[in-house]
């Protein structure tokens, strides 16, 4: 297979390293789930993965199509429902980490997954809030990934709370003390949040990317760490796991739809 990789595979490989063993993790679909599964199959075999649909302790052998897809696992350990997850698990502080995809993000890690453009006269309605506001609001750590999104000074729509207006404002607004996003991984680099101001800063670069390229994507004067980590290449073992588990994540949604549509056209012409 070699070690040539897609940018999604690099994001998955880097995100997986943020999950520790013996943690309870809430995971969504796509890149986030691939990262959680990669961690479980490598350095975090005792982590417990659950989805907001109420499936606790799943052991996914493929990437679920969505957060309620039980065909990704041969059974699971505890069947509850979505209200149980948000109240008895999330609100009670049992969630160590959550992985989430980002549409738009501001300098304090607040996110928009609802509308691009003025919500009353928008260009695109994205997926909507789903479970993101409460997960980012109440999970101990949130690891954010952004593959098609953008940095903005002001969100078109404020869907999910990061550090609100910076400093302690998140905790004053009622979110649990010490909780919050810890990392953002984009197609170009890795960002973290300053301990005092809670502002995003550049902490690392993906191979071959320059600081200038990243600064060009960010509309505010981005702070840059003194020493920048270079994201390690995904290993052959990691690539095998990711591609076996989720070829759709490796190729990305746009290419997936193209490939599957070709298959549909092929099937239809065979039976015509």
């Amino acid at each position, binding site marked *: 297979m070699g070690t040539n990789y897609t940018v999604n595979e690099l994001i998955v490989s880097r995100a997986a390293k943020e999950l520790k063993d013996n943690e309870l993790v809430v995971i969504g679909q796509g890149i986030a789930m691939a990262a959680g599964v990669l961690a479980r199959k490598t350095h975090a075999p005792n982590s417990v993965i659950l989805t907001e649909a109420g499936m606790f302790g799943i052991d996914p052998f493929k990437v679920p199509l969505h957060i309620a897809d039980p065909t990704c696992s041969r059974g699971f350990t505890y069947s509850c429902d979505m209200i149980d997850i948000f109240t008895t698990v999330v609100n009670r502080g049992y969630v160590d980490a959550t992985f989430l995809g980002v549409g738009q993000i501001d300098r304090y890690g607040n996110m928009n997954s*609802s509308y691009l453009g003025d919500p009353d006269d928008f260009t695109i309605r994205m997926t909507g809030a*789903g479970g993101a506001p409460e997960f980012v609001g109440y999970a101990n750590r949130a690891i954010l990934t952004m593959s098609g999104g953008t940095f903005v000074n002001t969100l078109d729509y404020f869907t999910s*709370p990061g550090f609100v207006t910076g400093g302690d404002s998140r905790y004053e607004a009622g979110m649990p003390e010490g909780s919050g996003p810890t990392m953002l991984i984009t197609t170009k680099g890795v960002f973290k949040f300053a301990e005092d101001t809670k502002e995003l800063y550049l902490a690392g670069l993906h191979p071959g990317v320059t600081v200038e390229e990243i600064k060009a994507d960010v509309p505010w004067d981005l702070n840059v760490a003194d020493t920048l980590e270079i994201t390690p290449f995904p290993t052959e073992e990691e690539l095998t796991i990711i591609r076996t588990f989720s070829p759709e994540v490796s190729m990305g949604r746009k290419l997936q739809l193209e490939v599957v549509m070709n298959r549909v056209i092929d099937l239809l012409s065979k039976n015509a």
Partner: protein
Amino acid sequence: MQKYMDPDKRMTAKDAIDRFVNNGESFVFANCLYSMPLALAHELIRQGKKNLMAFQQGGIEEIDQLLLAGSLDRLVLAYNFRAGGPRITTPLDRALKERQIVVEELTNHTLLSMMKAGAMGYPFIPVLSGIRVTDVVKRKGFMGDQRFSEITDPFTGNPVLVIKGYNPDFALMHVQRADKAGNGQLWGAMINSKWACLAAKKVILSCEKIVDTEVIMSSPHLTIVPAHKVCAVVECPWGAHPSELLGHYDYDFPFRALFFGSCASPEGAKAWMDEWIYTVGDRHEYIEHYVKRFGQETLDAFRAKSFKSVDADYGSTFSTDWNESGYSRNMGMNMDEFVAMLDKKGVLIHGN
């Protein structure tokens, strides 16, 4: 509150939607993403139901299909799948831009809390207050003030975000099995199913298979909706296709891609709706048409292998205190000795 006590509610999807759905009513999808009640939703479309208000936690294709049919004018939504990515204008995008519908944007937790409060008969329920800083709470949709409010915790004095309870007129639901009275059993991803069907004033239920009540009696932990909430039971194999249902079938992504791909243009979407909803009479014809278009082996590739739950044993001695020989385990006497004892104690009242 109206109860549905008929011991046999079996009927076709056509009769169920015709009898129990009126234009202008509100309804909730009591499954989201998993086990989607798509046969029932397609029947709503075929019968041209109008001005409906839908509650949906997470839509995949059904919201877009109902919008293409012009069935909805109000939508309460937390999430809607965008398979085509950001470049395609979806039917939901188009319906909002053209003011065909009004929308209320909630989160998974708050929308479901609205159902849970309604199901329990409570006027409102606390939710996770931190999201008060977001536009989900700050920007009002068509429900205006009839959703979030803030009250004071009477014990601590802290502010608490609350959401109003709601009781939709009906719920659509698809499950693995039910008896003819409507005791419905679902397993797999439970998501919103319990609270959505209990919040609704009535449930239109479809199932893969109608089973004897004896099956339900031996596995009541799987019953998600009790018969008195259910107004109609429709036996409907493949009733959730192309979504997945444990023990029956996996999701059919290529078929979904065909719908998403067709939504790139209004003409393409109309052609899909004509072929897969308007020109098939019911789910049986839909599957026949599928086999004709894609081949039997394409359909069969999605069939589930078995992974049976270990039985919960609901057995007991199935006897009263009197054993097979007519002897009481608790009192150590037979029936004659028991009556003699009552007489001796002076508690027997003598009749004729």
